[in-house]
């Protein structure tokens, strides 16, 4: 982690083959993210937000350029090393929650800790604590199919946060939620960001999320067109 930066990208380019041609999703993206930031990659559909998020999360590799996440050059990592980076340091929150359907809420939240090989007693403490954070400790035995959208996303947040990752990557986390649930989960993320100093990076074009951001990086056609500090204006603070 040079210069206290959690994420650094250098001339990042990502191209996808479409038919016989190449579609450029990211063009010369350079950015730095410090620890504890609450930032969003914003922009219209197809602007490259999710692609950038996937590269930062070591789920995808750039066509050219470099990405350094928590001191590791993700382009040079093997599959195994990428998996270890994600397992140890990163948390993911998805638009469609992506809960494991046959597991209970407890088992879903426990899953990342199992991958870390944590012992059972500590695991239980952390899972219960994470579920309390998101106010779902009474739904520990429920299956995802019995949860509402808001509850499912809160489980996904608990799962992303349970191992206290350094970085949480959230891809359109409120896209499937109504306003009330969106604000609830965003309040929760802000609280986690402030209490645990976890860095949050969102990919979003949802105004509700944008109101919570402290930094906004706008992408258009694969390029960063704006990178600004913003003042959060969540509904409880006079925003609405």
């Amino acid at each position: 982690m040079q210069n206290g930066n959690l994420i650094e990208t250098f001339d990042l380019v990502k191209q996808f083959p479409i038919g016989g041609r190449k579609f450029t999703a990211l063009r010369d993206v350079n950015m730095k993210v410090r620890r504890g930031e609450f930032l969003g990659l914003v922009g219209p559909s197809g602007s490259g937000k999710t692609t950038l998020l996937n590269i930062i999360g070591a789920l995808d590799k750039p066509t050219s350029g470099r990405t350094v996440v928590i001191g590791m050059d993700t382009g040079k990592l093997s599959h195994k090393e990428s998996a270890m980076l994600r397992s140890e340091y990163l948390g993911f929150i998805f638009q469609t929650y992506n809960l494991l359907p046959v597991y209970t809420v407890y088992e879903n939240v426990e899953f990342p800790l199992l991958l870390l090989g944590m012992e059972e007693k500590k695991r239980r403490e952390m899972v219960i604590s994470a579920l309390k954070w998101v106010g779902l400790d009474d739904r520990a035995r429920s299956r995802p199919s019995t949860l509402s959208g808001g509850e499912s996303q809160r489980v996904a947040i608990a799962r992303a946060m349970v191992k206290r990752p350094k970085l949480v990557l959230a891809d359109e986390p409120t896209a499937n939620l109504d306003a009330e649930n969106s604000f609830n989960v965003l309040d929760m993320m802000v609280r986690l960001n402030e209490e645990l100093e976890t860095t949050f990076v969102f990919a979003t074009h949802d105004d509700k999320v944008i109101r919570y951001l402290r930094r906004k990086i706008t992408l258009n056609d694969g390029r960063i067109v704006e990178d600004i500090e913003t003042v959060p204006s969540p509904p409880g603070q006079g925003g609405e």
Partner: protein
Amino acid sequence: MLVLKLALRNIIGAGLRTWLNVVVLSLAFVLIVWTQGFIQGMQEYSQRALIDTEVGGGQFWRPEYDQYDPLTLEDSHAPLSPALRKLVNDGSATSILITMGTIYPGGRAMPALIKGIDPSQKALNIPAGMLGRVSDGDIPGLIGQRMAKTTGLREGDFVTVRWRDVGGTFDAADIRIAAVVITDMPTIDQGQIWIPLERLREMLRTPGEATLVVVDKDTATVPEAGGGWIFRDQEYMLKEIVEMVKSKMVSTLFMYSLLMFMALIAIFDTQVLSIWRRRKEMGTMMALGMMRSRIVALFTLEGALHGFLAVVAGAIYGLPLFMLSKKYGFPMPDVVDDWGFAIPQKLYPSYGAVLLLGTTLLVLVSVTLVSYIPSAKISRLKPTDALRGKMT
């Protein structure tokens, strides 16, 4: 350990899908063992019956004798050598004299083998003692139920028999059916009539002669016979039946393979469907930091556990079924008479350790393999594609 734990969670969590899989697999497993048990039981029975009623511990033949060529019978008889006579006198062997003849049941002429056997013999499981039932000077004869059906003869009936003696002279006499014997062995039944050995020797004018000498199956050592008699051991005598059963086993093997194939298709289909349905789940697992090799291991193990559960479920309802069918047998249809070897009216299956363990192992290995194939496909899936639910 983690993979096992997750696989168990997945299997338990999948609920009905798991049990459907297990039921289909276990049905195939039980059906395979059950049918193979019957085939094995049939093979064992036919060999045992052949040994008991025909082959014994082996046979001494005249060099000219060919069991498939009745024309060789004319020259295939000779007096017993001293060694054979001793064996017969000791009760360790029995002489059989055979000639070609013609019978006239209901006025129709039918070729038949006339076989002479000692009514007091113990070497073969043929109820020759029934030949002693007729004592008023008639020639007693035994026939099997197939011969009775073909000729329409019943116990107490007379049938005219014509034969040629050793000098080539034709002669004829009436034989009285002393008994109709119920036997599973078509080879001692169809187209033949058994009469007392001494009467046949008189009829053929071949005193003290025999076509073959059957050694008791419990006779430990078979002496050199001398006098031109050739010993045909059990292996030689059973060669044909083993080949015949083998040919029947080809069709059973086909059935076996078909059942196994269906079971494997079921599990393969389920696994492929699982991947299709669960690719997003896999992407999530990858995103959460699960290594590809572990995902492959997880899905392979899930398949293997399906196989294991199928074996356990199969054992729960299969073992009682196997035991019941072994105890009470299974009635066989008449059509099996045409198979050419002994099939009992009730067949008792035989479930050997090789069959049970072999099939179990085969099911487990095959299921694991067909689970691995689609799982290996997952290992090539890009996490971003998997998360989008896309197959590449």
